[in-house]
């Protein structure tokens, strides 16, 4: 099921542009056709539990993009020096070092988010996308391409994470970016302390159409993330019937 996309190495003799067609494809494909979550089914483990709010999800997505990109770059740089038998350990050490950097940085600059993400930061190490891209791409390709491929896959992962988080937070809490400096209150009953864009307590106007609205508690449960991803997969495969697997 976890089909990895083995992009064949293009052998071009003349000097290539730094950011040509191949790089663009590497960067954009993971957003749709080879998306790490919905198509390759990698990396679901570490992060679904953080998607109940958008802000920690964005932080998580940035962390994964960073780790994915740079671990691909470093692995690709040393790829010819790694003995085949111990390559897993070498890859894990590279990833673990980068994740430690992320963890310490967060601990220093944003302690509340560090507390909130707790063990899930450490779990980026065993995030299958990072390891999967190292095995499938970085071990066989030049550093720059590997770096772009890692970034692309990290972004493809982050996009799904943020889509899920946006849906869960709007319907589950009625807010966006809660806990961050740019919190937006979308829907709910306004009172003296908080005002919402759609005020369900309003006597008249647009907000009054939503009188009696309550937040959907299902969306706060971890299970909601599974439903949303299931539906995202459904939508994507309805548009691309070739992606359907029969098992």
């Amino acid at each position, binding site marked *: *099921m*976890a089909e990895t996309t083995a992009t064949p190495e293009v052998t071009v003799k003349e000097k290539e542009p730094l950011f040509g067609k191949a790089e663009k494809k590497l960067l954009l494909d993971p957003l749709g056709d080879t998306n790490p979550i919905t198509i390759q*089914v*990698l*990396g*679901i*483990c*570490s992060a*679904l*539990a953080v998607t109940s709010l958008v802000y920690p999800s964005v932080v998580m997505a940035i962390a994964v993009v960073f780790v994915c990109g740079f671990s691909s770059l470093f692995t690709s740089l040393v790829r010819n020096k790694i003995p085949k038998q111990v390559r*897993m*350990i070498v890859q*894990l*050490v590279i990833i*673990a*070092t980068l*994740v*430690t950097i992320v*963890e*310490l940085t967060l601990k220093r600059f944003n302690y509340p988010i560090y507390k909130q993400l*707790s*063990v899930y930061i*450490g*779990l980026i*190490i*065993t*995030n*299958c996308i990072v*390891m999967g891209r190292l095995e499938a791409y970085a071990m066989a390709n030049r550093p720059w391409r590997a770096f772009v491929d890692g970034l692309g896959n990290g972004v493809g992962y982050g996009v799904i994470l943020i889509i899920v988080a946006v849906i869960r937070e709007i319907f589950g809490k009625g807010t966006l970016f809660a806990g961050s400096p740019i919190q937006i209150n979308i829907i709910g009953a306004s009172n003296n302390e908080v005002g919402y864009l759609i005020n369900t307590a309003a006597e008249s106007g647009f907000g009054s159409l939503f009188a009696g609205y309550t937040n959907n508690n299902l969306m706060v*449960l*971890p*299970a*909601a*993330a*599974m*439903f949303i*991803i*299931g*539906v995202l*997969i*459904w*939508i994507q*495969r*309805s548009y691309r*019937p070739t992606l*359907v*697997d*029969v*098992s």
Partner: protein
Amino acid sequence: MELFNIFIKAAFIENLVLAYFLGMCSYLAVSKTVTTAFGLGLAVIFVLGITMPINWLISELLLSENGIFGMDLTFLRFILFIAVIASMVQLVEMIVEKVSPALYTSLGIFLPLITVNCAILGGSLFMVAREYSFTESIAFGLGGGFGWFLAIIAIAAIREKIRYSNVPPALRGLGMAFILTGLMGIAFMSLMGIDPAALTAGK
């Protein structure tokens, strides 16, 4: 009895797969038939049960301020934990191959997969975060492994049956597996109200 409570809590109430989504990749990839799911589940129980106490010893004796080196080395935690897990998996693989070739052939392919199973590393990190003692960490490891085992057997059995159902084509396979996992998660939430301490106190 305290240990039994931790076991029950880790296996049912705070199931690693259904409450924390750990070990999702192999959970989804290896749950197509019950037999393979059974093998992987057993291997996970085994590895969790072994790595958890070892990682406890490492974090208490080597990394903590009261440890051998007398300084706070917690920043090395990730690297050491993952190294322990990788080498333990390797060791288990070699031992199983030597002792029971039959079990090795049935488990063989799944053992290396376990290194990158988030449930193993996640278990160790939870253990540190919750400050378990040595024996508690063993109970937590075995309980967590058992919970993972139950979850993968359940989803594999459901997926074997659902092949005969009329699922919309685009939802077949993966999409359905996600939704099923969500439903199972909700079902397991009904166990949340159970207080293991109250159960054992009555006896």
